[in-house]
């Protein structure tokens, strides 16, 4: 009798526990939505290959977490906050999506994070640049993982001023991202004893930069800085090369440059340019090993965004595994409590404002003589320690921090 009693109790207890665990992963499934620019300007740096990075993470996790299936859905946000918002709303309200990954255009990330906050779901931003995403636009429902404009300005600009580039001329893309970057750079240049002697705000996008390069050349500034992105940056660099800007003694500084941009330009046109990056595929053995796998899948080397998507998805799934729950706040708290040590970052950590802080790197594009293949493009010049790279919490306007 005692035996039967014991068996029954165990059976009931097991069922109850299993039931409890089951209830914690909603609808018996972890569903991740990948939302990114799949066809426009930012396609190559995130896009379809970012989805592959995400799938690699899920596959490496065995396709399931705590016995529950992991499902992925994806959509093209067309760089439109409206399109992105309606997709995200449908995902979280009707399709039971637990986490939205990708998120490239800053305007898209800001719009989507509001919807996630309303619905108590989680977002991990890997592609966006604007530092405001974890500053005035921070929410308890998203994490900004890879990089932002703060270290871009901080890393590249301060390094160049210290090397003697005292006078600056800035070519700025005439929209929010460009203005933010221009302001950040101006602050860094002046703080380091340099001076901004001129700026031009060019329309976005600008196919022909010759006029602007000519004006920058005429300014006589030591440094011509590009506060723009993607096609605008590569066009400006090509034109600067054509007009012999660097040969005439000026330094060209690209403030946001992805591996795919540099690859498109080639070492010949881009050599010597300094840039700040959150990750480089050839920076250590772990990064290289993962980049090799990625290249087998896609035929190209990963950008920092691709690597960040893989890493952040792993962190997310590990957090679900540890807590046994896919509830946003439980997962976010677990992610904040776990230091990040993987192929992407060493001792990375997620702060209460949602910013993942980790070491950034100042890189310089190799010369054609130094470069051994088409993807062998950067020399890492300096590691910018996490605490120095990102905006300190003491300067934060994020309500999650200031209300404390």
């Amino acid at each position, binding site marked *: 009798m005692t035996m039967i009693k014991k068996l029954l109790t165990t059976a009931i207890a097991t069922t109850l526990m299993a039931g409890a665990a089951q209830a914690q992963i909603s609808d018996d499934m972890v569903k991740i939505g990948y939302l990114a620019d799949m*066809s426009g300007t930012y396609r190559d740096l995130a896009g379809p290959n970012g989805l592959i990075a995400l799938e690699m993470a899920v596959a490496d996790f065995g396709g399931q977490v705590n016995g529950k299936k992991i499902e992925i859905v994806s959509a093209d946000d067309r760089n439109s906050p409206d399109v992105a918002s309606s997709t995200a709303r449908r995902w979280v309200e009707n399709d039971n999506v637990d986490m939205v990954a990708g998120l490239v255009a800053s305007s898209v990330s800001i719009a989507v994070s509001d919807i996630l906050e309303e619905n108590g779901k989680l977002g991990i931003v890997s592609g966006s640049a604007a530092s405001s995403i974890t500053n005035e636009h921070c929410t308890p429902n998203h994490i900004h993982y890879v990089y932002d404009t703060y270290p871009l300005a901080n890393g590249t600009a301060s390094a160049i001023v210290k090397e003697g580039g005292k006078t600056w001329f800035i070519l700025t893309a005439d929209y929010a991202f460009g203005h933010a970057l221009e302001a950040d750079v101006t602050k860094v240049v002046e703080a380091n004893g340099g001076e901004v002697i001129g700026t031009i705000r060019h329309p976005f996008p600008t*196919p022909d930069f010759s*006029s602007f390069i*000519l004006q920058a050349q005429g300014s006589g500034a030591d440094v011509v800085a590009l506060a723009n992105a*993607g096609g605008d940056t*590569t066009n400006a660099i*090509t034109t600067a090369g*054509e007009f*012999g800007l660097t040969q005439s003694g000026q330094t060209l500084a690209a403030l946001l440059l992805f591996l795919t941009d540099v690859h498109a330009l080639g070492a010949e046109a881009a050599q010597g340019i300094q840039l700040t990056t959150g990750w480089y595929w050839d920076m250590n053995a772990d990064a290289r090993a993962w980049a090799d796998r990625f290249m087998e899948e896609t035929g190209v080397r990963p950008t920092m965004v691709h690597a960040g998507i893989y890493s952040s998805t792993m962190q997310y799934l590990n957090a679900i595994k540890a807590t046994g729950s896919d509830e946003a706040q439980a997962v976010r708290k677990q992610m904040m409590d776990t230091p990040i040590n993987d192929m992407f970052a060493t001792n990375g950590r997620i702060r209460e404002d949602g910013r993942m802080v980790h070491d950034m790197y100042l890189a310089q594009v190799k010369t054609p003589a130094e470069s051994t293949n088409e993807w062998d493009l950067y020399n890492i010049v300096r590691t910018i320690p996490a605490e120095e790279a990102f905006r300190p919490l003491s300067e934060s306007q994020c309500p999650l921090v200031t209300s404390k």
Partner: protein
Amino acid sequence: MSMILGVPVAVLFGQLLLGLINGAFYALLSLGLAVIFGLLKIINFAHGALYMLGAMATVILFDTLGISYWAALFVAPILVGCVGVAIEYFLLRKIAGQDHIYSLLLTFGVALIIQGVLTNMYGVSGLRYSMPDVFKGGMNLGFMFLPYYRAWVIVIALLVCFGTWFMIEKTKLGAYLRAGTEDSQLMQGFGINVPLLVSLTYGFGVMLAAFAGALAAPIYSVTPDMGSHILIVVFAVVVIGGMGSIAGAIITGVLMGVVEGLTKTFYPPASSAVIFLVMVVVLFVRPSGLFGKEA
């Protein structure tokens, strides 16, 4: 240094010259549009995509077959011209004689398809193309550094523009073309193959776009969307010049390049809008465009 409106004269000259060079591109592209509209009454929204195809072909021909820049200047336009003839034969012919809006929508669809396919194949970051060695470097004009390649662009583009104008306005072939599109039945009565003439004319307009693309390959990022940015500007140029006016397209193209260049000097943020402002003003004052025939 003497100044004009707060801008050094030297800088102003530089901008004028650059404006002229960009204008040469606008002229080539708007000329192709004007030929197609003027002679065939087709609003060719695929023009930007075909310009891009010319640039892409130049890069791809070099990467795969090692075809040099000089050869590509001929081969790329001919290949893309063939694509144009195919578009005319298989698609545009089916809607001949219909309202203009049909050709506009059809060619817009074709442009989206071409652009989408190439985006999938080559990505959006752009293909790399090195300038031919002979054009590397440039000369110091005192007021600006003029890359040799830009000087070459202006010369060759204007030559091609003039040649096209001459052929259409001054030769017997041009007279056939103009007559064939005025009254095709009459021309057919004279034993002239009008459908062939139409195919070739469309193909020729497309070749002009592809030629501009080949010229652009060494200086701009060659990306699948490079044509979509320039298309709207070129349409504005054609409207300002007068739809269908060959000389109007060339002169306005060059002129608008200069206007844009000057705007970039005095107030850069307006530089992408200035051509549309001019268009609005011109349409108010002369609805048929600067060189258009009064309707």
